[in-house]
């Protein structure tokens, strides 16, 4: 039976989309639905599940002990996110711009900047922790040049720990931002730059008028991806500071709070609850969903 062209096209479309949808459906969407169910039960991870309805949410927002932790974790997470995205976008653009010019050793620099990215998070965490330790090389160097008297407790001071972890993250993932921004810069049509230069615009003005608008999609992409990663994962904090979230919970972010509710912290926890963790996860998703949608749609609308 000969298919009409439209039918064939539709079939083709479905066939091409099917693997992606199946993979996403099984590994992302189905667990998400399962998350709704788990947030309605009380379950310590072992033994039977007890249906408690919206009790987990009530405890999370009602009980001061949990609410305080939630607010603190979210505030910390926001600070964490802003430090990371600030450094990634600003430094990333600066480095990408430098890489886009015909500077000597450009390829070597590109390789060096990309080197941290494929490293495992745990490896990077331990490596950088050794660098900032009180007996580590960074403190030794600062002491050597008489910049400080006492070693700075980068990971021990509640005021510094979060920023230190944020810098670890940025160092690790910087090349991701650099590559995206660089490809956006390189995609700028050369004759536009030439036209701007002919009109007498200086280099900075050219950049501002011609190159930066093209970066907007890249910026949005980086922001969304980093936002989802930062709010959902907590590798550095968990590995280095444990599930308790470092010195007096100063590095406690949503990821560690969630982990602690599910599996217990280091201070001999007596009650853990996967349901509470699921509630926290849903709450996190709800919080970042509007921001992610807004950014993505805003960018789509921009396209002409």
């Amino acid at each position, binding site marked *: 039976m000969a298919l009409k062209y439209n039918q064939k096209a539709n079939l083709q479309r479905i066939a091409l989309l099917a693997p992606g949808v199946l993979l996403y459906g099984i590994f992302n969407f189905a667990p998400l639905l399962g998350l709704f169910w788990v947030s309605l039960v009380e379950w310590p991870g072992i033994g039977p599940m007890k249906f408690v309805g919206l009790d987990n949410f009530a405890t999370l927002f009602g009980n001061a*002990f949990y609410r305080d932790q939630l607010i603190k974790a979210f505030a910390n997470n926001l600070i964490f996110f802003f430090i990371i995205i600030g450094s990634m976008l600003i430094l990333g653009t600066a480095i990408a711009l430098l890489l886009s010019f015909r500077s000597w050793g450009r390829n070597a620099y590109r390789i060096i900047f990309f080197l941290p990215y494929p490293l495992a998070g745990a490896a990077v965490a331990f490596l950088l922790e050794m660098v900032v330790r009180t007996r580590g090389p960074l403190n030794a160097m600062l002491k050597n040049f008489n910049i400080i008297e006492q070693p700075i407790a980068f990971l021990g001071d509640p005021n510094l720990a979060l920023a230190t972890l944020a810098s670890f993250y940025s160092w690790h993932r910087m090349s991701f931002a650099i590559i995206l921004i660089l490809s956006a810069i390189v995609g700028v049509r050369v004759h536009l730059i030439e036209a701007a230069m002919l009109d007498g615009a200086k280099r900075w003005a050219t950049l501002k008028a011609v190159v930066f608008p093209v970066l907007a999609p890249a910026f949005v992409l980086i922001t969304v991806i980093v936002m989802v990663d930062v709010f959902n994962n907590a590798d550095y904090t968990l590995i280095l500071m444990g599930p308790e979230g470092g010195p007096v919970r100063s590095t406690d972010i949503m990821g560690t709070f969630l982990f602690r509710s599910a599996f217990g912290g280091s201070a*001999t926890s007596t009650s853990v609850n996967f349901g509470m963790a699921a509630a926290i996860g849903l709450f996190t998703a709800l919080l970042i969903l509007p921001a992610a949608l807004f950014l993505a749609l805003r960018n789509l609308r921009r396209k002409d």
Partner: protein
Amino acid sequence: MKLSALLATTALAAALVATSAYAETVKLYTWREQEIPLWKYISDSKVLGDIAIEVVQVNSDDYDSKIRIDLQSEGPDLFQGRAGAAWLSSFVDAGIVKPISTDLSGIAPAAIDAGRGADGQQYGVPFAIQMQSVIYNTKVLADNGIDVPKSMDEFTAAADKLKAAGIIPVNFGARSGWWLNQVVGETMTAGLVPDDFAAKLVSGEACFTDPTFVATLQTVKDWQDKGYINSSAMADDYGAMRTSVALGESAMMLDGVWSTGPTSPMFEIDPDLKMGFFPVPGANAKVYAFGDGTYLLNSATKHAEAAQKVLDFTATKAFAELFVKYVGELPAYGGEYTVEDPRLKEVAGMIAANSSSVTPFFAYALNKGQPSYGTLVSDGYGALLSGSASPEEVARKIQDGLNSWGYVGAANCK
């Protein structure tokens, strides 16, 4: 046959032979590195017949999380649990541990509560009796001409002397949450709070905002203000604290006797290290003794018979003597057994003569709700040492936290 194929087949055959050397393998999870030589001896010498015991050791900070994750799949056949009904309660409620049939008649009365659940039944076999106190590097004190302080004034004088000599008087590894509540909180309480008052704290008749209890927090704060504690206390964890004392950079620390056992990593730093003990010389001046924990049987184990055999063995005199020999700690066995080690003799003497009878950290009444006493003390000391709360505020937070789930003293202590 080609040489490589021959080698491969031989290797495979050897591997098969090796794995079939034992009829059954039982997995034991623990946070205690010092147990590894003990179980290796028991396995290798086939004390329990054809059962091999594989010890999985997890860092103490991560133990609680890891055990819960692993119990969802194959996981341990046996695992060590921390003492007290509160810690056991989640495992009991989930049916992971069931009341045991092991004969516990030989266990010392002081340790028997370690395995007792909220319903009064025994769920595990207690293992060591531990002592927590001030542990000091004898060489450092001797080099500086300091005797063991018998009062807080003597302690302050000793600390001043040490500080002048460039040594950290007391090292704190405040990054480790479990150490803050189990060791610091309890040892300071045993040293500064009279036993009868501590008993009232547990029963709810006395409040944590009372100056008698606040003194424990205030003393630590005073130590910090006077510069007796390492400036990086919040960055250093339990391991860093022990390292510092082993290196001789610090003189004293609040720790348990397990750190002075033969397998302690402190001896890897200094094999000639000698350590001594004394209670915090406050109003109560007692050391803190407790049953460290229990051996628990995972009811979902696939090696039930072999695991039960191992569990029953841990309650016997033979095990107690192996325990003393290979772990270097006092076992929970109550009957007569030989102790030759002078250090252990000294510890046993201190426990018998001068240990606090009250253990708030393990008290079910204080730990059955969230936030538990343990969690509050850990957070409290963390806030205290990082300067974000005063001793009174910390005590208030502990009291409020306990009141929030209506502990036994909630009505009495507003």
